[in-house]
């Protein structure tokens, strides 16, 4: 009995889950290595794990009806194109005339191009109605033309939007062709009886960029501003007032209404473009789905286009891919390995068919990399991105013809095929009963008919970041244990032992504040007139370093240091554990905001976070292992430095040609003009974590 008691006292029963936790923490080195490597392997496996797309929403029924677009519509469209390219009067009037001839309601929308503005938290706050900047001359006024067909069977509460961007100053042949396709569909839709949603055809004035035109129209549509005195005033300076002229137009006596016209809520939007150059192979259709901050339209929208393109109109559907990866040798080898593995698996059990051919693998990987890169940048790939800010699903369809549009022989045929595709898509969306909600919003495309859903692509990321909390916990446990041993003598010290980390937390907080300051600096640098990117970048770097030094002095001053003690033995460990936890929190947050950024960022920052260890300790150890670790640390520290990381990522995904330091500035500038969350990630998570890791490397322990 007594013995039993003593045994139970010696070995308190620990629950298995707690024991597992202790096991993980005590073997954190191996666990983290294993997790990290399996994370990379899982990432490379993603093209194999991609599923085939399927149309999830039953109501869509793509391709169930025969196309009604006839050659008659096409010949009308041809006439329209000729008028547009050869007429003397301003092109937007031509467009308006043709629209009102189809009994559509026509409105002009005047807008000023928005200047680049810095909304650091734009992705986070609700979309605010933009601030109209003052003192813009009348000449920079853009005019969008929008035609609305009211649905005979609808109640005017829903709408489908067609967008064709064009430059009224110089209508290119491709733009004219895209307008022609849209016109042919529009002329058909004005006569059909099945339409249940209104159709809006927006001819966007792209002389100041198509995105700003579309977003200005959308802002007016969704969130009108009621202090428009400036625009009304500016009408006086514009001699050709389109609206008043439209009132005298014989075509549009009942459709002449000066104000802004609306249809219902938008179910979906299609941006139609035609490539200026032919690709000499075949007629193909490129889909651009990425909106700001890696948001994607509902997968069903892409599915319809893909289905109709492949099965009905015979376009070759393409998604952007990285051509640099296609030829890379290591990827081909990897594809070969996976193929042979798949064959072996199939020979063992014919039921297992996860292997795909090497070429398929490489294609999938290149597309996936491109999808991840453009999502990770957080910059929309076309004017469809403006729609996503209002929760409207939209994609850009860029049709690239076989021959160049200028010397096209089969123009009628081309318009017919393009028009039939658009008609089919619109008919499908017309069938929708609710908003798009059935299919995925969070996915990566690995070809136009394959996708990787959120449940799959989160696995590599989770494996990559899983070591962070484990290592943080083990370091924290070690640090608190060592301080417990070293300072048992004095009772006062003991009193803080479980709050020891507060000191490190303060440092980490200050460095993150520094990161915030650094990411705010370009806002001020942008005010400097006539500066080249290179000088801007240099000034930015110097100011950042300067602010870091100032913060360092403030941090070292006695106000902050409660007890100026010499650096302790375990100090770097506790600092590292806090750093790692903040990196973990930051990466997890970013994975919710924009997954692709978090994935790429994790690949860069996680190794240095895990490996960081004072160089001095390694130098003292004087073993091959320590030396290897020190070199690894230095190399990783160099790689994770944001500009270096940028050039590496760019080199991996794009080409290396003509890189200079100013490129980084340009990139940063593009990020913050597009309100990308990636910018904040780099400034507030990546840079401070890197700085802290470097601090740990050179820690005087």
């Amino acid at each position: 009995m007594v013995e039993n008691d003593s045994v139970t006292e010696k070995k308190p029963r620990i629950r298995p889950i707690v024991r597992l936790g202790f096991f993980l923490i005590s073997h954190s080195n191996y666990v983290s290595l294993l997790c990290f490597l399996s994370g990379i392997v899982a990432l490379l496996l993603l093209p194999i794990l991609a599923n085939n797309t399927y149309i999830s929403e039953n109501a869509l029924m793509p391709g169930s009806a025969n196309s009604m677009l006839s050659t008659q519509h096409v010949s009308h469209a041809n006439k329209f194109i000729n008028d547009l390219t050869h007429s003397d009067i301003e092109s937007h009037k031509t467009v308006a005339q043709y629209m009102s001839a189809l009994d559509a309601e026509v409105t002009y929308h005047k807008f000023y191009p928005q200047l680049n503005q810095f909304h650091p938290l734009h992705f986070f706050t609700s979309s605010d109605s933009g601030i109209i900047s003052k003192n813009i001359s009348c000449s920079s006024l853009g005019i969008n033309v929008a035609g609305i067909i009211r649905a005979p069977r609808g109640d005017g509460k829903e709408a489908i939007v067609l967008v064709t961007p064009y430059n009224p100053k110089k209508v290119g042949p491709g733009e004219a062709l895209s307008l022609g396709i849209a016109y042919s569909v529009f002329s058909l839709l004005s006569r059909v009886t099945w339409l249940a949603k209104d159709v809006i055809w927006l001819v966007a004035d792209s002389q100041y960029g198509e995105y700003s035109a579309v977003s200005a129209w959308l802002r007016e549509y969704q969130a009108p501003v009621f202090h428009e005195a400036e625009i009304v005033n500016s009408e006086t300076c514009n001699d050709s007032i389109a609206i008043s002229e439209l009132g005298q137009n014989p075509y549009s006596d009942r459709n002449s209404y000066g104000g802004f016209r609306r249809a219902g809520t938008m179910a979906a939007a299609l941006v139609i473009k035609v490539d200026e150059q032919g690709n000499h192979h075949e007629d193909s259709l490129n889909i651009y789905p990425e909106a700001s901050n890696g948001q994607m339209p509902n997968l069903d929208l892409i599915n319809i286009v893909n289905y109709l393109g492949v099965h009905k109109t015979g376009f070759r559907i393409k998604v952007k891919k990285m051509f640099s990866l296609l030829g890379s040798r290591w990827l081909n080898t990897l594809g070969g390995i996976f193929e042979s593995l798949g064959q072996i698996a199939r020979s063992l059990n014919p039921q297992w068919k996860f292997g795909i051919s090497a070429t398929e693998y490489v294609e999938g990987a290149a597309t996936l990399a491109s999808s991840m890169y453009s999502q990770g940048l957080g910059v929309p790939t076309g004017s469809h991105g403006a729609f996503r800010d209002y929760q409207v699903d939209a994609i850009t369809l860029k049709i690239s013809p076989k021959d160049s549009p200028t010397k096209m022989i089969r123009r009628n045929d081309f318009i017919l095929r393009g028009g039939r595709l658009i008609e089919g898509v619109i008919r499908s969306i017309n069938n929708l009963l609710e908003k798009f909600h059935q299919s995925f919003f969070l996915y990566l495309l690995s070809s136009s008919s394959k996708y990787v859903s959120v449940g799959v692509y989160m696995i590599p990321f989770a494996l990559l970041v899983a070591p962070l909390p484990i290592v943080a916990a083990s370091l924290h446990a070690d640090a608190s244990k060592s301080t417990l041993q070293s300072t048992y003598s004095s009772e006062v010290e003991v009193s803080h032992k479980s709050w020891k980390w507060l000191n490190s937390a303060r440092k980490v907080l200050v460095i993150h504040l520094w990161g915030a300051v650094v990411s705010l600096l370009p806002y001020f640098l942008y005010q400097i007139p006539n500066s080249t990117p290179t000088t801007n970048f240099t000034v930015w770097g110097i100011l950042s370093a300067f602010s870091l030094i100032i913060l360092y002095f403030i941090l070292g001053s006695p106000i902050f240091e409660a007890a100026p003690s010499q650096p302790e033995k375990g100090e770097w460990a506790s600092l590292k554990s806090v750093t790692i936890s903040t990196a973990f929190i930051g990466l997890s947050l970013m994975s919710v905001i924009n997954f692709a950024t978090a994935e790429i960022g994790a690949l860069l920052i996680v190794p240095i976070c895990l490996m960081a260890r004072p160089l001095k300790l390694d130098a003292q150890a004087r073993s091959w292992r320590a030396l290897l670790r020190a070199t690894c640390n230095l190399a990783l520290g160099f790689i994770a430095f944001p500009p270096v990381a940028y050039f590496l990522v760019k080199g991996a995904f794009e080409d290396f040609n003509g890189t200079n330091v100013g490129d980084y500035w340009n990139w940063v500038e593009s990020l913050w003009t597009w309100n990308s969350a990636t910018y904040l990630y780099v400034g507030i998570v990546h840079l401070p974590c890197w700085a802290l890791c470097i601090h740990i490397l050179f820690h005087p322990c």
Partner: protein
Amino acid sequence: MSTKTETPVKKKNQKKIQCFWSWVIGSVILRLIIIYFPKNLNLSSRPEVSTPLTSIRRLAEGYWLKQSSMSPYAGSMYHGSPLLLTLLGPLTVKRIEGQPDHLLCSLVFVIADVVTAMLICAAGKKLQAAYSSSLQSIGLHHLSEDSDILPSGDFAALLYLWNPFTIVACVGLSTSAIENLMVVVTLYGACARLAPLAAFGWVMATHLSLYPAILIIPVILLFGYGPDAPPRKLFRQRTNLEVDDSASGDRSCLEDELVNEKRMLNVFSWRPVVLFLFWALLWSSYVLVLCGIYVQQHSGLQEMFKSTYGFILTIQDLSPNIGVFWYFFAEVFDFFRSFFLIVFHGNILLMILPLALRLNHRPCFLAFVYIVLSSMLKSYPSVGDSALYLGLLGLFAYELKDMQFSFFLFSGYVGVSLLSPVMHNLWIWRGTGNANFYFATAIGYACLQVLYLFSLISGPLLVLILLLSLFSLLLFLN
């Protein structure tokens, strides 16, 4: 000799006081800066900050209804106290040219925050005095002397003022700042043994948000036994030891000890408690009369109770917040609703008695735990409630210096408070997420609070109950 040693101590104290005040002023300046910040922060419409009970916009609406001679509770917009309407209502209407909209209101909240902090500081001083006197009586004087750290009251006050949750709640114009003030008034009044003040605080806090009603138990204990002390067992042990040691000592010494013991054990004294109850009765009737006058024209006090306490208890508003109730009651079938209402509110009541038994020698700490508990299980929680208990944590900094999981909790709070707005954004603005995304952070937050409570009062039974109730909720949902 004595003067020599005193001067550096004094200097140090002076320096500390200066430091303290500069930090207080700094926090006020920070609040003013954020108030003047352009509107795109839009904190007052965040679900984490303003609940249906504490939102200033609803208050302004209620005031407007009252001004147009309708009942302020018409249309289920306003659910607060009529007294707040008279206090803050006129300020919501008044605008100063060129200044932010709700400037005067925000100034009121800033003042409330500062007063709260000062009261916490004063309460901390009282607690510390009681603590060192009880240490002396056990004979561990040296422990109290070498505690060179910042006094716990000052520390708690600064913690309260600089807590991001407090700042966000203050700038987000949530009336929880005033509710917190009333709770702290209660605590201070009870620590300083000022029955009228404590009664006033308690009545007002209960009137404003109902849940502080459970604070009556710790307040009565405070008045009965005095502030926190080590368990009574300890005193007895101590005296026994001394008796053993000085067995050969003379008899008078032993008698002294016995007297001392009697004083320290101080049996429950009824007089201040009765005084407190009397004052509470007085104040509550006064408040009721005032409210009655205010809502006289519009169906009287009954409607007021229905749309304040009734609204809290029946959980009519299911708009998302950081609690777990909204999701649950959006899912539950109507015929189970009243049953689950009883279960959920019973949860708090279930916890009250065991905690009171366990912590009856430390009423202040008991009050603190009750505050944590109610802010966890209340029907419309907001960050303002967490701000209060996180600030009060500083009062017990000395006792909680060995707190487990402190780092984990800290990271958890940081993570959840950043994740919650992002999830909300994903659900409401981007439309790519859904309600489960936001509710997941609410669950995470609830788990964190359970862990927080666990590390405070390592009472496994209690945690088991809490976790069980949480998981039963989850199971039910699935």
